[in-house]
C-alpha cells in the first residue's frame, strides 16, 4: 500500500483524507436532515436536530431556520406527487456515501490510483458545491436565514471541492513530473525499458509545430514529448529496480463507470424512500367541510386574481406569523394566484373577537377593519401587514398601543379612518366572526378550505403541495 511508502509518494495523502472527512461530514449532515424530514411523514410536528454537530438536538428555540428551510418549497423534489416530496438531502446522502468510498479508495491507493480517478474526483467533487451554492442563494434570497444543518452540508461541500481541486492539482503535478522524468536525458537510458516507444514517435509526429519551435530556439536535442495529460506507460524489466514509476492513466471506461455508480448511489435511497411511503390519499380530505359557506350580506372579502380557477376560503389573522408563512408558501408555490379566494378575517385579538380572553395579536382587529375598508384591494393591506408584521406587533405592544398601529395604517393607507371607526365595519366584522361560529371553525389560523373541504392542519407544511393538488386537481402544477 502507498501509505507505507510515503517517502517516495508523488501524491500527498491529505487531499484524499480531506475528501474522506468532508464526505463523512456531508453524509452525517445529509442523513440527519433526511431523518428529521422523514419523521414528519406521520403528519405530526417533531423536534429537529438543528445543530452544527450532526444529529445533535439544537437549542430550544433555535430550530426556526431549519424548520423554515424544511417547510420551504425548496426542501424536497416532487412535492406535488408525493406527500412531502423526496427530501433534497436524500440524494446527497447517497452521493456523499459514494464520495466517502471513493476518497477511501484514493487514500489507500495513493500513487497507484489511475489519473482518471483524480480527474473524476475533480469533475464530480465540485457538484455538491454547485448544488450547495444554489441552496445557499435560495436561503439568502428566499428564506433570509440559514439552517445549521444546511450550513453543515455547505461546509462539507466546500471541503470536498477543495480536496477535489487539490487532488487534480497534485495529479497534474505528478503528470508533469512523469513527463519531465521521461524527457530527462539522464533517464533516457532507462527509457529503453519503455514499451511505448512507438507511441512516443507517433506523438512526436503529431506535434511537428512544437518540435519546430523548439529547434528555432536553439535546442538541437530535445526529449521526446507526449500530448498534454498523457504519460508514458512503462514496463519494468524483471531485474531492474526503477527509481521512478510513472502514474497510470486508467482505461476510458473508468469515468463512465464511476458516474454510473455515483448515479446509483444517489438514486437508490430515493427509490427505497418512495417505495416505503404510506398512502396519504385517505387522510387529506378528512378534516371537515364548511357547513354554511353562504355569505348573503357579503361580509367576507373576495380576492379573485386574473388566473383564478379554484374556489378557496382562507381564514386568516393579518398579524399571525403562521398565516404570513402560509401565505408566502402559497405564493411561492404558484398556488395563490390560481385561487378565487374568500377571505375570512379572524383576528386573534379580544378587542373585537369575543372568543379570546386576551389579545394574542394586539392591533389585529384594526388591521382587519382596514382590510375591509380597503375593499377594492384588501390584499394590499394584508400583504402590507404581513410585511410589517413584526413592526406592527412591536408597535401595538409599545406605549402607543393600538392607536400607534392606527397611525401606521394611516401612513400607508390614507382615508380609511372614518370607515374603520364606523358601526357598519364593526358589525360587518361581527358577522364575519359569527360566520365562523355557524361553520363551527376551530379558533385557529390559518385555515384553508378548497371547495369547502378543509386542508388539514397537518398537511399545511411539508405536505402542502400534495394535499392541495389532491383536493383541487384542476390547479396547474408549477
Amino acid at each position: 500500500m502507498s501509505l507505507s511508502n510515503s517517502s517516495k509518494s508523488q501524491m500527498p495523502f491529505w487531499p484524499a483524507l480531506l475528501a474522506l472527512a468532508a464526505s463523512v461530514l456531508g453524509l452525517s449532515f445529509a442523513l440527519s436532515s433526511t431523518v428529521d424530514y422523514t419523521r414528519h411523514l406521520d403528519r405530526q410536528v417533531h423536534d429537529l436536530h438543528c445543530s452544527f454537530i450532526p444529529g445533535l438536538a439544537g437549542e430550544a428555540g433555535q430550530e426556526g431556520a431549519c424548520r423554515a428551510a424544511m417547510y420551504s418549497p425548496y426542501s424536497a423534489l416532487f412535492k406535488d406527487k408525493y406527500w412531502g416530496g423526496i427530501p433534497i438531502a436524500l440524494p446527497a446522502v447517497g452521493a456523499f456515501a459514494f464520495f466517502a468510498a471513493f476518497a477511501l479508495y484514493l487514500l489507500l491507493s495513493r500513487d497507484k490510483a489511475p489519473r482518471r480517478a483524480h480527474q473524476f474526483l475533480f469533475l464530480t467533487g465540485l457538484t455538491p458545491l454547485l448544488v450547495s451554492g444554489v441552496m445557499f442563494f435560495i436561503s439568502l434570497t428566499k428564506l433570509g436565514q440559514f439552517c445549521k444543518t444546511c450550513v453543515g452540508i455547505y461546509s462539507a461541500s466546500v471541503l470536498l471541492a477543495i480536496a477535489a481541486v487539490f487532488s487534480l492539482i497534485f495529479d497534474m503535478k505528478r503528470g508533469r513530473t512523469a513527463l519531465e522524468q521521461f524527457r530527462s536525458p539522464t533517464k533516457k537510458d532507462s527509457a529503453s525499458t519503455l514499451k511505448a516507444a512507438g507511441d512516443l514517435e507517433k506523438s512526436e509526429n503529431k506535434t511537428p509545430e512544437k518540435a519546430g519551435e523548439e529547434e528555432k530556439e536553439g535546442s538541437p536535442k530535445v526529449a521526446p514529448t507526449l500530448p498534454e495529460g498523457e504519460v508514458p506507460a512503462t514496463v519494468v524489466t524483471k531485474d531492474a529496480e526503477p527509481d521512478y514509476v510513472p502514474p497510470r492513466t486508467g482505461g476510458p471506461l473508468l469515468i463512465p463507470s464511476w458516474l454510473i455508480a455515483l448515479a446509483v448511489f444517489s438514486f437508490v435511497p430515493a427509490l427505497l424512500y418512495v417505495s416505503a411511503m404510506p398512502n396519504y390519499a385517505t387522510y387529506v380530505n378528512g378534516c371537515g367541510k364548511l357547513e354554511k359557506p353562504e355569505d348573503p350580506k357579503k361580509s367576507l372579502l373576495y380576492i379573485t386574481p386574473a388566473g383564478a380557477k379554484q374556489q378557496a376560503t382562507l381564514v386568516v389573522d393579518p398579524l399571525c406569523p403562521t398565516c404570513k408563512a402560509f401565505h408566502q408558501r402559497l405564493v411561492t408555490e404558484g398556488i395563490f394566484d390560481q385561487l378565487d379566494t374568500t377571505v375570512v378575517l379572524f383576528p386573534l385579538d379580544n378587542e373585537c373577537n369575543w372568543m379570546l380572553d386576551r389579545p394574542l395579536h394586539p392591533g389585529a382587529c384594526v388591521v382587519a377593519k382596514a382590510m375591509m375598508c380597503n375593499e377594492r384591494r384588501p390584499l394590499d393591506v394584508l400583504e402590507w401587514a404581513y410585511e410589517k408584521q413584526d413592526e406592527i406587533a412591536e408597535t401595538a405592544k409599545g406605549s402607543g398601543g393600538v392607536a400607534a398601529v392606527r397611525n401606521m395604517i394611516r401612513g400607508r393607507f390614507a382615508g380609511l379612518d372614518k370607515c374603520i371607526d364606523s358601526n357598519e365595519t364593526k358589525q360587518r366584522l361581527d358577522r364575519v366572526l359569527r360566520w365562523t361560529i355557524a361553520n363551527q371553525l376551530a379558533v385557529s389560523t390559518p385555515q384553508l378550505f378548497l371547495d369547502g373541504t378543509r386542508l388539514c392542519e397537518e398537511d399545511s407544511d411539508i405536505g402542502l403541495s400534495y394535499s392541495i393538488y389532491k383536493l383541487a386537481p384542476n390547479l396547474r402544477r408549477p
Partner: protein
Amino acid sequence: MKAAALIGIAAGCVALAASALTVQGQVRAAGERLKTGATLEKPKVAVANDAEAAYCTPAFKQVLARVIHACGLVGGDSRRGCQPADVKTLASINDEDFNALFHPLKERGAVIMFDDGQDKLDEEAKRIIADRWQDRKGARYFFIVARASKTGGADFNRTLSHKRANSVLFLISDQFKADDPNIDKEAGLLWLGSEFAQLGKEYCDWNVSRPGKCTPEAINRSAFISWVDCQL
C-alpha cells in the same frame, strides 16, 4: 490497488446500505405511526362559539336556559311565548334576585320607556333599540323583558306588558328581518305583570330612553332589552 478498490467498494456499499435502510426504516416507522395514530397528543383547539361573559353565572345561565327553552328559542319550531306565571316557576328564585340577575347587563342593555298605558315606541326608543340590536358582538340571545306599573288591574298590566314586548320585537323584525332571518330564534320575550317586583329608582341610571322623565313609576312602564353574552 485491487485491495484498495475492494475496500472502497465495500465501504461504499456499507455506507449506502446503512444510510438508505436507516431512512427507509424511518419512513416505515412514520407510516406505522400514521396508520395507528400513535402520535403526539395534539393540543385541543377551541371551536368558534358565542361569547361567554363574566356575568354568566350558573344561576343566571339556569334562568336563561329555562327561559329560552320555555320561550321556544331552542328545540322547537315555533315560538311558544313565555307567560309570566311560567317565569315564576322557571326562574325558581324570588323577584328581587330575578331582577338582580340582569344587573351585569347595565352597560350592555337599555331600558325602553313607554307612556302610561301605552305600548307605542317613540323615536328615541326606536333609535336605542336599533342601536342595541346592532351591537350584537358574540351574543346569541336578545332578551326583551317588558313590564307594567302597578296602576290598573293584573290582567290589564299583563296584556300591556305583552304588547310592549311585542312592540320592541316587531320593530326589530321590521328593520332587520331581511338581514337576519333567524330573529325568532334569537329574541326572547318576557312580559312581566304587576305581580313581579317593581324596578327601583336606581334603574333610572341605566341607559334609559327618557332620561329626563325617569321616575319610580315611569321606569316600570318599560321594556329592558339586551343581548346576553352567555353560551348555552
